[in-house]
């Protein structure tokens, strides 16, 4: 037990925070009593089914709804054009022109822009009838050439997705920090990498999207019971389009079956369902099915890095990097182009790179829109940085451990200011790496690798991934994309209340999807109010009617431990102050004499003078005659608090500023065995060391590490979303998209360091996204197995065929890398 000073209190005693108590949520979930979106419904509801395009890019010539409407049990059909006529404006655009000219409406209007694009939506009495009717909405298409290549999309000669925009380029910006030209001229070596490609995949939550939307024609209130993970963002984006003010939305979430960022993407469907409900005069229920999810719910960002130049000194010090990056947003801008700036939260990665120039271009293509996906945008950049570290080590014959330790931000450097003025709060990367290497038995495996030698047909590779999970972001970074956006800072709201019989209840603006918010919120509340977590009820999910929200409420971007718990702690402190004030009056004592513990307020040192919470609640709610007006004006036992992290508005001209409050770090080490004949990769060992500051519930933190590791390994080896030249997705279901199983993911050995954040109310850092460390570690291990003279591991996805190609590439073909050195003749790498 430690005594700490929390915000606003002199003596918060920490007894529950920091302990791995089992989760409160589990009791209902293990019994099958969770409440997921498809489990519920509304009286008289119809079932919605979207009519979706089979083409990647086509003009809509005509839509014939009559055959569907003739079917018994069909209530209504809403087409894209009809929906547009009811809308006041396209969805709110984050981008300035030309991106803002890439208009999106609730359903496709005029043309379809990707396979699965929704052209109409049917409402019927049953799911089956709606599905049948959707097949009887006849759409005539005139196919257009599909744009699928990210880099080619930016070429002015490429066909356009949006004629109004006149380009496929959404946004372009040069992020230029330090003096990379100087660094390239003065470095001992320059390592040039032709191309790196971060592939498209999805964390594919097991529960697909869904919503029950009820447009109440009497009150004008649009009730949205859904598993959408950022409700107020959806209201802000779709409200002006469908003409609904914020206070006429009532967003509610309950249990959510995973989200990982993907469930930020389906606001367009919610808008279409609201209009359909309005048209039909009844509630609509929509449950996305898996193939629909894979085709349309949103994919993670695909990024191509070209012409990478890395200035390096002979001692292994890396001075910086110069690169052109192309990001593929897919067909519509469903949160993009925020990804164009989000990566700059981690410009130098874990390293002290001083000179960085990224020429960044984001384009639209005829593919599924990208949406935030666990590790959103930072993971892509961090992967490039980690690839650079290993490729530099390999080409200059340096030890990748040494290169990392030489270039890491060191423990004494914190708080560390990056070249773009982000502030890394705390950490100990070298020690994290040492722990991870030990957990993975790296030394033994290195010896085994040497023993194995050549000729066995098998190779061993040892890989490292060291990443950052930047959390609690400053929405002011959106102004680097568009200086006119009215966004900055961040926040979260919570209400901690003493209810009529003295029950303690917590409402938060978050939308947990497995992160255990009910448990950790109860832990911090229990500490402040001197009770056990069992005595704290945390409402499940988000409910707009609770008024516990701000504009950025939700669960995303690794922030709950800071902003969510910051709000809960602030509200609990306020409630505690009220309890003390009320008890002092009731017990005729000074406030300084009051202790709050075990559900009572007591006068210290006098056990006969105490009042239980129910007594205090009774005084305020149901027995208040005679209470001083002054006291009643200060005490309502219903404490709302908004936590606001300390941020300034970033500078959009220099593209600098503190973009995130905390930086959890991950160092992963893995050992792979590669079969030379088949290219198959087997993970022999996996270790993950996470440093996320103070852990409120270490068991939950470790669970997040396991999960992020599992999804990262899956993406590195098994999961990829690929389009053919005509824009057809090759993995539209779990048949083709190999969602990793228990046979694919190895045991993960976890280690931890707790470098408390100096910037947060509780020393914690957000950590759920995990930085994509497994992608880096697995690529690094495959690179190690391929060997020093082999080609560069240039793709983040390495299924067996790609690994086989790396192992057996024609020796005269390019290895994808070259080194020039300042002294002596240039060392052009030999094959």
């Amino acid at each position, binding site marked *: 037990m430690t005594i700490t000073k929390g915000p606003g209190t002199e003596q918060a005693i920490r007894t529950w925070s920091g302990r791995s108590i089992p989760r409160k949520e589990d009791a209902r979930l293990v019994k099958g009593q969770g409440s997921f979106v498809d489990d519920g419904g509304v009286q008289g509801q119809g079932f919605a089914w979207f009519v979706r395009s089979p083409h990647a890019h086509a003009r809509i010539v005509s839509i014939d709804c009559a055959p569907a409407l003739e079917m018994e049990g069909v209530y209504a059909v809403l087409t894209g054009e009809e929906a547009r006529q009811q809308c006041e404006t396209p969805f709110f655009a984050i981008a300035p022109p030309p991106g803002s000219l890439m208009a999106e409406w609730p359903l496709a209007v005029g043309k379809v822009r990707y396979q699965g694009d929704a052209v109409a939506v049917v409402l019927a009495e049953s799911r089956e009838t709606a599905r049948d009717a959707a097949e009887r909405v006849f759409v005539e298409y005139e196919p257009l050439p599909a744009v699928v290549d990210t880099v080619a999309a930016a070429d002015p000669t490429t066909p356009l997705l949006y004629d109004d925009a006149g380009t496929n380029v959404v946004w372009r910006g040069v992020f230029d920090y330090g003096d990379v030209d100087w660094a390239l001229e003065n470095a001992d070596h320059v390592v040039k990498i032709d191309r790196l490609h971060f592939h498209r995949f999805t964390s594919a939550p*097991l529960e697909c999207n869904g919503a029950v939307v009820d447009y109440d024609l009497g009150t004008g209130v649009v009730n949205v019971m859904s598993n959408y993970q950022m409700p107020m963002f959806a209201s802000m984006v779709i409200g002006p389009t469908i003409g609904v003010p914020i206070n006429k939305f009532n967003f509610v979430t309950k249990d959510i079956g995973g989200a*990982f960022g993907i469930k930020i993407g389906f606001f367009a469907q919610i808008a279409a369902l609201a209009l359909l409900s309005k048209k039909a005069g009844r509630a609509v229920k929509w449950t996305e099915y898996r193939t629909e999810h894979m085709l349309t719910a949103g994919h993670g960002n695909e990024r191509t890095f070209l012409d990478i130049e890395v200035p390096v000194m002979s001692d292994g010090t890396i001075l910086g990097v110069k690169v052109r990056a192309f990001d593929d947003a897919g067909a519509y801008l469903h949160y993009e182009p925020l990804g164009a700036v989000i990566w700059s939260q981690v410009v130098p990665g874990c390293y002290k790179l001083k000179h960085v120039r990224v020429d960044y271009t984001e384009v639209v293509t005829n593919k599924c829109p990208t949406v935030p996906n666990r590790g959103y945008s930072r993971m892509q950049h961090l992967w490039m940085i980690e690839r650079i570290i290993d490729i530099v080590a390999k080409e200059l014959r340096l030890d990748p451990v040494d290169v990392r330790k030489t270039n890491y931000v060191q423990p004494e450097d914190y708080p560390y200011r990056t070249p773009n003025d982000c502030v890394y709060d705390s950490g100990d990367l070298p020690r994290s790496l040492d722990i991870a290497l030990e957990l993975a038995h790296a030394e033994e495996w290195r010896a085994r690798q040497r023993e194995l030698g050549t000729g066995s047909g098998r190779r061993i590779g040892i890989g490292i991934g060291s990443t950052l999970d930047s959390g609690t972001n400053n929405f002011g970074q959106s102004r680097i994309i568009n200086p006119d956006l009215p966004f900055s800072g961040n926040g979260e709201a919570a209400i901690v209340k003493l209810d009529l019989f003295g029950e303690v209840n917590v409402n938060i603006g978050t939308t947990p999807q*497995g992160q255990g918010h009910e448990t950790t919120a109860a832990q911090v509340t229990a500490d402040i109010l001197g009770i056990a977590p069992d005595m704290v009820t945390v409402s499940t999910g988000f409910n707009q009617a609770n008024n516990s929200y701000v504009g950025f409420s939700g669960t995303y971007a690794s922030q709950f431990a800071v902003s969510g718990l910051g709000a809960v702690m602030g509200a609990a402190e306020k409630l505690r102050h009220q309890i003390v004030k009320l008890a002092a009056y009731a017990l005729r004592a000074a406030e300084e004499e009051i202790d709050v513990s075990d559900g009572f307020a007591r006068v210290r040192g006098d056990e006969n003078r105490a009042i239980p919470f129910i007594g205090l609640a009774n005084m305020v709610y149901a027995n208040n005659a005679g209470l001083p007006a002054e006291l009643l004006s200060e005490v309502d036992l219903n404490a709302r608090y908004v936590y606001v992290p300390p941020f300034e508005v970033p500078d959009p001209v220099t593209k600098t500023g503190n973009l995130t409050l905390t930086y959890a770090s991950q160092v992963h080490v893995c050992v792979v065995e590669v079969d030379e004949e088949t290219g198959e990769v087997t993970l022999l060992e996996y270790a993950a060391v996470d440093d996320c500051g103070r852990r409120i519930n270490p068991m939950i933190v470790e669970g997040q590490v396991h999960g992020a590791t599992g999804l990262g390994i899956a993406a590195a080896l098994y999961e990829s979303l690929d389009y053919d030249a005509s824009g057809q997705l090759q993995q539209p279901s779990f048949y083709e998209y190999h969602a990793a199983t228990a046979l694919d993911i190895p045991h993960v050995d976890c280690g931890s360091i707790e470098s408390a954040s100096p910037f947060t109310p509780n020393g914690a850092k957000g950590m759920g996204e995990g930085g994509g460390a497994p992608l880096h570690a697995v690529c690094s291990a495959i690179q190690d197995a391929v060997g020093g003279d082999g080609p560069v591991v240039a793709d983040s996805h390495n299924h067996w065929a790609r690994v086989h190609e790396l192992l057996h590439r024609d020796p005269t073909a390019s290895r994808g890398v070259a080194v020039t050195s300042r002294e002596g003749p240039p060392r052009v790498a030999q094959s």
Partner: protein
Amino acid sequence: MTERGASHAITVIVNGERVNRIVSARQLLVHFLRDVLGLTGTHIGCDTGNCGACTVVVDGKLVKSCMLLAPQADGSTIETVESLAADGQLSDLQRAFNEHHALQCGYCTPGMLMSATYLLRQNPDPSADDVRRAIRGNVCRCTGYVNIVEAIRSAVSAGSAGRAAAGAAEEA
């Protein structure tokens, strides 16, 4: 075309209760359980039989209830996740899932528990590899399977070697 007229009378025993219903010929067993009987603990995560969220036990065999039509289940005995704590007490496996943090979002959990329950009936002392093979048809996107394997293994020791020994090991 719809087959609105095509329906069948079925009788099934679900979690010990006899149920008679008229069902549409095309109704999936999982929709029958969820929409008709209100047993929403059985979930749907895919449309191809890959994810296992809908796993139930039918006549003693593990079945993905999205791969069976309700009329095909006529005459069978079905166990769903709701049966596991029928007397109000969590089963060893359910308790182990809680204690070992083997669930996060909880969406795969009912199917996972049914597969694990079935495994322990077939093999009371499975190795970690046995466990991984037994749940390979159940996709979890949250846990990386680490704690699920741990939980199932611990339920084995709780069930066979006795809880006292397991408790002592925990203390140590």
